[in-house]
């Protein structure tokens, strides 16, 4: 059976070159990077190379890169870390209402310990307007966190403009770039951000490793305490193979960025066009142009998302409805509700997300299979009236 993976925003296949780079560090080069002997030195050199690769990818210096266990920990470190470090200066944090739970739940936690959080609304395409941010800034705002690109609908934000607003009011700016990495240029200077989160497994790197960029001089406290690794910000024996893997993944993302983007753009547009042409009442969620090159998110009136995912799965196509994280419950995605979709359309959303490993055959196969499935569900749906 065909196996077509269109759920690359949930996780990606590890690039064979990444696996190859990691392998020796499970095998003979198993040293602890903090050890004095040559096993340790070998490991430390690998960590330094990984750190340089990530730094180059971000246009940062190696000492501004801190390794974490993933996007979630990076987001937590940025938010908890800066909130606590600046708590004498203010207790107000601003974020958007369409952030990933790694940001939203951290904010909810911070609210329980004395911080105030403003959740900015977005327009119907999922964009945060700089004027909305401007209006929310207060004297006590120490941190603004707005994601570079949304994981469900793929809408991208003008981070540079938003960061400028934050800075004008003396706040620091964090962006969750977990989804934009490898799909948009990520230069911390042009973005103008103070902190930026990455996750390895979203860019053909391994799971369980992430990175946080922290501009030099940014006040920040650890979330996890211990032996003082990562210059005291994130203790624990360095995950050497993971660091080697995410380093290589960043290097590949950096090298092939332009090619990757144009390939994904082409596949995305073909997918949207193919679906719109063959399925009546298919609505594209998110922004028509300011969207990730790898994201297609559509709703089909009268169709329930999970049933559709199951049908696609039976045909060998892996897709998702809402984000992987919220797919455990059948509640409609907070992102789709935030952009104004009604509950039924939100529950009927289909997310197809691409990577450089997809092909035009994958797209053709999906366009061939999907219309009959939608038709079948509509035919059995009490919500669907043929016009």
């Amino acid at each position, binding site marked *: 059976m065909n196996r077509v993976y269109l759920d690359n925003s949930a996780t990606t296949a590890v690039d064979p070159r990444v696996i190859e780079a990691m392998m020796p560090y499970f095998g003979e080069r198993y040293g602890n990077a903090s050890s004095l002997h040559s096993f340790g030195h070998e490991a430390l050199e690998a960590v330094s190379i990984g750190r340089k690769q990530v730094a180059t990818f971000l246009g940062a210096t190696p000492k501004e890169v801190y390794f974490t266990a993933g996007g979630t920990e990076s987001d937590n470190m940025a938010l908890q870390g800066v909130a606590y470090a600046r708590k004498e200066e203010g207790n107000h944090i601003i974020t958007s209402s369409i952030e990933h739970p790694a940001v939203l739940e951290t904010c909810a936690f911070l609210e329980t310990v004395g911080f105030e959080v403003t959740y900015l609304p977005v327009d119907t395409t999922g964009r945060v307007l700089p004027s909305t941010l401007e209006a929310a800034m207060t004297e006590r705002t120490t941190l603004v966190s707005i994601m570079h690109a949304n994981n469900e609908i793929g809408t991208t934000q003008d981070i540079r403009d938003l960061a400028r607003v934050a800075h004008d009011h003396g706040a620091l700016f964090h962006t969750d770039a977990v989804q934009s990495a490898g799909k948009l240029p990520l230069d911390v200077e042009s973005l103008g951000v103070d902190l930026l989160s990455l996750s390895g497994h979203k860019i053909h790197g391994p799971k369980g490793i992430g990175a946080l960029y922290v501009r030099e001089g940014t006040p920040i406290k650890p979330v996890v305490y211990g032996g003082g690794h990562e210059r005291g910000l994130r203790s624990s024996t360095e995950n050497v193979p993971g660091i080697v893997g995410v380093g290589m993944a960043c290097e590949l993302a950096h090298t092939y960025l332009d090619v990757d983007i144009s390939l994904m753009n082409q596949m995305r547009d073909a997918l949207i066009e193919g679906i719109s042409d063959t399925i009546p009442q298919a609505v594209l969620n998110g922004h028509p142009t300011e969207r990730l090159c790898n994201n297609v998110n559509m709703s089909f009136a009268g169709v*329930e998302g*999970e049933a559709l995912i199951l049908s696609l799965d039976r045909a060998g196509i892996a897709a998702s409805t809402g984000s992987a994280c919220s797919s455990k419950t*059948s509640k409609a995605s907070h992102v789709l509700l935030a952009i104004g979709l009604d509950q039924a359309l939100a529950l009927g959303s289909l997310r197809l997300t691409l990577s450089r490993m997809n092909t035009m055959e994958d797209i053709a196969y999906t366009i061939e299979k999907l219309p009959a499935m939608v038709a079948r569900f509509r035919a*059995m749906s*009490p919500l669907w009236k043929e016009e």
Partner: protein
Amino acid sequence: MGFEFNENVIEHFENPRNVGEIPDADVIETVGSPVCGDMLTLYIKLKDDKIEDIKFKTYGCGAAIATSSLFTELVKGKTVEEALKVTSDVVVEAIGGLPEKKVHCSLLAPDAFKQAIEKYRAKQ
């Protein structure tokens, strides 16, 4: 979480029995709504206190489709009293089990059926 459905569930999901409407149904009942995530409409035709025909339409997940299909199959031809004994537990067992998180979906059809019968009896 992954779909942990057995072959029976998948078979009913892919080839649901008794899907559709009955134009001259004796009673039509809908439970759920898109806001709950699941919705089911049952069409029932009765004859001599027996379920002569039953059809359904549903907006719901795979488990909802499969258990609704099986439910209609189980009750068709039975007397109303017999059919009312086809509870969610009976359906889940007959289909060979459901993942815990999906058990609630099997309530849809028995609930709709019970309500439909109450409505029908009230009308009489």
